[in-house]
C-alpha cells in the first residue's frame, strides 16, 4: 500500500509540490547531462558522415546526419581497421554467452555449497574465491599466457572465455541469495527422496531465477565489455571482441574519431538495451539477495 506519505515530496498539485518537482528535475537533468551527455555527443559525432576532428570550438551537431560511419565500421572500411565489425560483434556475443553460461552453472553450484553445506576447507576456499575480486590482472598476463599456451588455449575462444569465469562476485551473490531462501523446501525435497544434487537441481535452481538473471546480466555485460583478457589471449585480431577492436581506431599518428564513436555506439547500445530491459529482474535479484537496506 503506497500512500502519499510514503513519499518525500509534497502532493503533486500543490505549489510547493510543483516547485519541489521542478527542483528535482533540474538536479536530475544536470546529472543526466554529465552521465549521458558525453555519449550523446558521441552519437552526434558518429553521425557526422564526413569525419570529425577536435577543432576549436568543438563541433557537436552534425550538419547532415549520415550513417556512413556505421556502415563503414560495420563493413570494415576504415583506414585503421579493415575487418568488419560484425565479426567482433559475434565474438563479443560468443564470449559473453559462453562465459555467462559457465559462470551461472559453476557459481550457482559453488554458491549453494558455500551457503548450505559444511565441508572441510569451506571457509578457506570461499575466501580464496572472494580474493580473486581483488587481483590486479596485469601481473597475470605473462604467466597466464604461458600457462594457456601449454594447453593450446591461447588464441582460442575457450581460452578467451576462461579467465572471465574465475571471479568471486557470482559465488558471493549466489551464496547470499541462497541463504535467504527458506530451507524448508530443501528439507521437503530430501524427504521426498531427492539426492543432494536433486535438491539443488529441482528445488533450489527453480527458485533462483531473479538471482540467476542478475548474475547473468552482470556477467554478460562485464564480459561483453572486457578488454584485457581478449587483448592478451586473442593473438589474432579475428578473435578480438568489441572493446579490443575499438583500440584500432586510435592509430600511432591519428585517431579516427567519427568511426570510433560509431563503433563505440555499436558496442554500447546493445548493453544499454539489455540493462534497461532486464532491470526489473536483476533489481529483484539484488533485493532478495540480501543486499537490502
Amino acid at each position, binding site marked *: 500500500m503506497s500512500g502519499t506519505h510514503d513519499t518525500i515530496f509534497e502532493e503533486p498539485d500543490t505549489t510547493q509540490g510543483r516547485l519541489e518537482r521542478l527542483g528535482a528535475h533540474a538536479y536530475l537533468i544536470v546529472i543526466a547531462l554529465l552521465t549521458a551527455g558525453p555519449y550523446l555527443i558521441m552519437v552526434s559525432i558518429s553521425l557526422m558522415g*564526413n*569525419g*570529425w*576532428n*577536435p*577543432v*576549436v570550438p568543438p563541433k557537436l551537431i552534425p550538419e547532415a546526419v549520415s550513417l556512413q560511419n556505421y556502415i*563503414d565500421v560495420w563493413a570494415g*572500411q*576504415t*583506414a*585503421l*581497421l*579493415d*575487418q568488419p565489425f560484425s565479426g567482433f560483434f559475434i565474438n563479443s556475443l560468443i564470449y559473453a554467452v559462453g562465459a555467462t553460461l559457465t559462470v551461472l552453472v559453476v557459481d550457482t553450484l559453488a554458491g549453494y555449497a558455500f551457503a548450505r553445506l559444511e565441508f572441510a576447507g569451506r571457509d578457506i576456499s570461499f575466501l580464496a574465491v572472494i580474493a580473486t575480486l581483488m587481483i590486479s590482472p596485469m601481473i597475470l*598476463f*605473462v604467466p597466464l*599466457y*604461458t600457462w594457456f*599456451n601449454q594447453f593450446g588455449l*591461447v*588464441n582460442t575462444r575457450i581460452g578467451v572465455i576462461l579467465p572471465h569465469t574465475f571471479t568471486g562476485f557470482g559465488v558471493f551473490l549466489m551464496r547470499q541469495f541462497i541463504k535467504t531462501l527458506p530451507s524448508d523446501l530443501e528439507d521437503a525435497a530430501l524427504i521426498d527422496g531427492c539426492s543432494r544434487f536433486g535438491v539443488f537441481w529441482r528445488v533450489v535452481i527453480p527458485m533462483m531465477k531473479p538471482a540467476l538473471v542478475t548474475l547473468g546480466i552482470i556477467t554478460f555485460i562485464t564480459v561483453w565489455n572486457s578488454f584485457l583478457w581478449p*587483448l*592478451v589471449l586473442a*593473438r*589474432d*585480431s*579475428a*578473435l578480438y571482441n568489441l572493446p*579490443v*577492436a*575499438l*583500440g*584500432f581506431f*586510435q*592509430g*600511432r*599518428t*591519428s*585517431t579516427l574519431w567519427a568511426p570510433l564513436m560509431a563503433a563505440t555506439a555499436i558496442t554500447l547500445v546493445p548493453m544499454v538495451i539489455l540493462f534497461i530491459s532486464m532491470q526489473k529482474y536483476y533489481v529483484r535479484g539484488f533485493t532478495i539477495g540480501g543486499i537490502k537496506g
Partner: protein
Amino acid sequence: AGGGGSNDGGGSDSGGEGTTTGDSDDVTTIELWRWPHSTEPSNAGEDEIVKLFNEGPGAEQGIRVKQVKNPFGDHQTKVKTAIGSKSAPDIAWTFTEQYYDTAGKDRSTIESEAPYVYIDDYVSDDWLGDFYEKELSDQRAQFGGIVGAPFVSGLQPGLMYLNVDAWEAAGLGEVPTDSWSYEEYLEAVEAMHGVEANGSTVSGVGIGLKDATSSEWSNFPGTIGVTAGSLIGNGYRREDDSYALTMASDPELEAWNEMFGKPLANGWTNNPLSYDYLETQEPFVGGQIGLLHHATFSRVQFGQEADFNWTIIPYPTKGGNENYSVYSAGLGVLVTMTAFKEEVGGNPEAAAEFIKFRNNARNQYRWFNTSSQAIPNKGAYELMNSEGVSDFVEETGGKDIMDRADTAYSEYESVREAIKSRYPDIKTTEDGAPVTNVPTGIASGRVGEALGGMLQRLAQNGNSNPKEAYTQAEGQWADLIVQADDTEFAEESRGYNKPEPKAGPI
C-alpha cells in the same frame, strides 16, 4: 574506402583460426605483427607487398606470411606478453630499444640476451647497401650491428605546415621560404590569432607531441636543439666508452627560452606538454600553423577535405640563421622490423626472407608509391627518380618531403665530420661514424621518465627556468648511468654547460 581492392592481400586477418591453409605442403607460416598504418593507402601498400611475397618468393621457399594487426596502443603489451611467454611473433614492428637495454653492452652480450636477432646475420651487404648510410651507422653505433630493417623515415625536428589563407588574412605578407627566426614565428602566431579565415577563427598554434612519460621524450630535448645548431643532441660516447651528457650544455637552452618560454595567447603554447596526452594529429586542428616533430607523416592528409591553401614552410631557426642545419633525416625513435629468436618462439630464418623482400629497394619504392611516406632507402629513392612516382604521391606532396629527406641524409657525412671536429674525444665506430647514441633504455627506460618529468615540470611552471630543469634532468640521467652495471659516466660532463656547449653552422 579507396584502396579496398588490395585489402585481401597478404591474407591479413581472414585466416581466423590461424595456420590451417598451407600446412599440407610443408609451408611455414610466419606471423608479422604490426599496427595498422593510419592511412588507408599505406595499409593497402603494405598488404600488397605481403601478398606479392606469399605468391612469389614465399611460395617458392615454402614461407607464408600472416599479418596480425594490433591496435597501436596495445601492440607493445601484446608483443611483450608473447615474448615473455616464449611464443613471440616471427616478425614485429618494434621500437627496438623498448625491448632491451643496450647501454654499455657490446654486440655479443646483446646477441645472447636480447629477444631479437641481428638481421645482418641473414642478409647480404648488398641488400643493406640500399639503405641510407645513416640508418645503418646509427644502429651499428648503438647495437654493434643491424637489428632491424628501418622502413619508414622522417625528418627532425619536424615539419611546419601553414594555412596560407590565414597567413594572408593576418596581413603577414610573404610566406617564409627560407630560414626564419623564432621571433618571427612568434610574431606571426600572435598576428594570426583571432583572424577570420576559411570561415572560422584562427586560434593559436599547435604542435603535435604525445605521451607524457614515454621514453620517446629522451629524444625531444635533443632534437629541438638541432634548430640551434647542436649536432649531437643529448650526449655522446667517448673513446674510453664513458658517456658524456650534453643536455645541459646545449645552446638549445636559449632556443627553449625563445621558442617555448613564452606562453601564447589563449593558453596556446609551443610547449608540447601543455597539449593533450594524445598527439594532435592534424596540423590545422589546433592552430593554423602546425609543428610536427617527427615525420611519419611525410605528407599531410586532412581528415576534412582541406578547402584552403596550405604549404610546408621551413622550421624557424635560431636567429633565422640559414647556416644552421635544421633537418636531420631518420626517425628519432627507431621503428624497425625485428625478427625474434627461436628461443622466444620466433623463426628468424624465414622472417629474414620476408624482411629482405619487404624492404628491398623495389618494394620500398612500391610502397612509397601507394603510401607517399618517406622511406630510408636510397635504392628506392633512385627508383623514384628514374621511374617516376605515382599520381598519389604527386597529389600529396610526398616526393617533396622525400627530396628533403634525401638532402638531409646526404648531409650526414659532413655533419659527421663536423661532430668529430667539435668533440675530439668522441668514440667512432669501425666505419668511422661518431657514436652519438646516449643510453636511453638504461634503467629500464627510466631516462624517459626523468626527461619526460623535466619537460612536464617545465610545462607546469610555465617554462620558467629551463636551465635548472635541464641541469637537474641531466643529473638524474647521469645517476642512472652511474648506477647501471655496464655503463660508465664521464663525470666531468655533469652539470650546466659541462662540457662546454658546441654549436654553430656546419
